[in-house]
């Protein structure tokens, strides 16, 4: 399905302030995905002909229902799943050549939280660059990791075993690891899942700060209100890109109904969006 001209904008106006002059050298596009198709052997492609761009200094929300291919798209961009067609470029070069400039935050369920490592150990992993035998972490690595923990308000838990953290703290640890990498492009898979509104708000503030520093951030999420309120741009995904552009223009009832395959009720006054199942459509309203 091609982009719907009714809901996309040809001339995008960023919601955020323009980049400060010291960040202008970063260029315009951090991530460009061209005609990317990927999936798992023996199954139809999980994502098909994906085209998208993530500009520098913007927070872009990737939204879609479960099984829409959000995680597969991230994995295909990063080379964890081999694309059958198309390519992903970061800062104009293939992603594998730009690894030091990219940070990835996997879903919290993908990490073994019983593993005997401390919060600081996990964040330090984000500092990994290239293989050198008998290598140990430097003072700069430790300082950057502690700074990332300060930023995510986890510094007091630096020496805790990761399994002792709550769900929200675990997400913040993975985000701290992505921040500690010092990357210019951040790919965050479901950082808000299962968090209450207050914790979400804190995370969004951190992301806002990173975007203002010139980082490009692509966030996969189910959370419509979060994308509507916080992201500069939104990309609606359901195996293909349904629509992409400034959040306010993209998140229309029509696009969301196509993306989520069900009727969506919007309540604009409170900026709260809720699902209601259409008559005859199976499923629970809150299940996205």
């Amino acid at each position, binding site marked *: 399905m091609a982009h719907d001209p009714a809901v996309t904008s040809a001339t995008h106006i960023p919601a955020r302030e323009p980049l400060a002059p010291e960040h202008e050298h970063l260029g315009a596009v951090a991530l460009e995905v061209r005609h990317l198709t990927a999936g798992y*052997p023996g199954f139809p492609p999980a994502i098909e002909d994906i085209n998208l761009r993530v500009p520098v200094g913007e927070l872009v929300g990737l939204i879609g229902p479960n099984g829409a291919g959000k995680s597969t798209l991230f*994995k295909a961009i*990063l*080379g*964890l799943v081999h694309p059958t067609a198309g390519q992903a470029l970061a800062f104009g070069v293939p992603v594998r050549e730009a*690894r*030091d400039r*990219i940070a*990835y935050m*996997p879903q919290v369920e*993908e*990490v*073994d939280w*019983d*593993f*005997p*490592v*401390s919060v600081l*150990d*996990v964040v330090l*992993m*984000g500092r*990994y*660059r*290239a*293989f050198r*035998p*008998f*290598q*140990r972490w430097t003072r700069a690595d430790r300082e950057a990791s502690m700074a990332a923990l300060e930023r995510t308000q986890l510094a*007091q*838990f630096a020496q*805790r*075993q990761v*399994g*002792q*953290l*709550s769900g*929200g*703290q675990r997400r913040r640890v993975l985000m701290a*690891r992505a921040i500690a*990498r010092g990357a210019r492009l951040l790919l965050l898979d479901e950082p808000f899942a299962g968090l209450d509104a207050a914790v979400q708000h804190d995370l969004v503030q951190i992301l806002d700060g990173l975007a203002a520093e010139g980082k490009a951030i692509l966030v996969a999420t189910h959370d419509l209100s979060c994308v509507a309120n916080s992201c500069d741009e939104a990309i609606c995904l359901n195996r293909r890109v349904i629509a992409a552009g400034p959040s306010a223009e993209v998140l229309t009832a029509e696009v969301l109904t196509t993306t989520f395959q069900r009727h969506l009720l919007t309540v604009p006054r409170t900026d709260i969006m809720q699902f209601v199942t259409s008559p005859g459509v199976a499923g629970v309203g809150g299940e996205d």
Partner: protein
Amino acid sequence: MEALATWLFDPYQFEFMRRALLVLAITSVVGGVVGTFVVHKGMAFSGDALAHSTLAGVSIAFVAGMNVSIGALIAAVVTALGISWTRERARVSYDTAIGILFVAMFSLGVLVISTRTTYTPDLFSFVFGDILGVSRSDVIAAAVLAGALLLFVGACYRQLLFVAFDPAMARTVGVRARFFEYALLVMIAVAVVVALKAIGIVLVNAMLIIPAATASLVSSRFQRIMGLSVVLAFIASVSGLHLSYHAGVAASPAIVLSGCTLFIAGLGWRRWRGRPTRPVEARAAA
């Protein structure tokens, strides 16, 4: 006091007991280091499979009149690589791949042994362990293998830890995760061969699992667990060896049972100390 000193040091007047102690010390270091990865990456079944697969190498080498330890090493490494290869090519789960390779290699070993019409005590010393029959060359072979393994772990510690904890993320930052996953299996194979002559095919996996599992009860830091595993493995080894010497029982099961006793003590310690069960956020807010 004198009686205790006699009990402790008397056995070591014999050359074979000194050799046994030395090979158990080497086994403890290797078992503790590799076992920590095995326990925390959930690879206990791999250890058991690689131990049993050595029977094929041991029996073929024995029948062909070659060095039996080299045969065991080749069989274990071939099985280790075969497990990863089968998993990738046949697209079966890890434990299914292990299950197939394990029984294939063990069956091959039994098949080869069945061609021998005479009783082969040397061969069975590998199956049940023969700590008192360890030769000087066995000790040297174990030391060389252990040295190579420790050098590799020291050089690649960060990569191995990263791959054990979060292989997907490791790949995204440029760690050759596939290589290190193969390497972990080969490390287990080497550890099994180091301990094989002393402990035997049937029980060798215990030297990987029990000390690391016990250490994990009292610490939650990977490096500390590793160090503590080595110490606990050595305590279990010495206790078992003394039990064997003074009570006249087989050394290998005595060592394993000493290790199990330490594990039970570790469970008691954990219960007594009480480990935090509530998330820290809840306690911080309280």
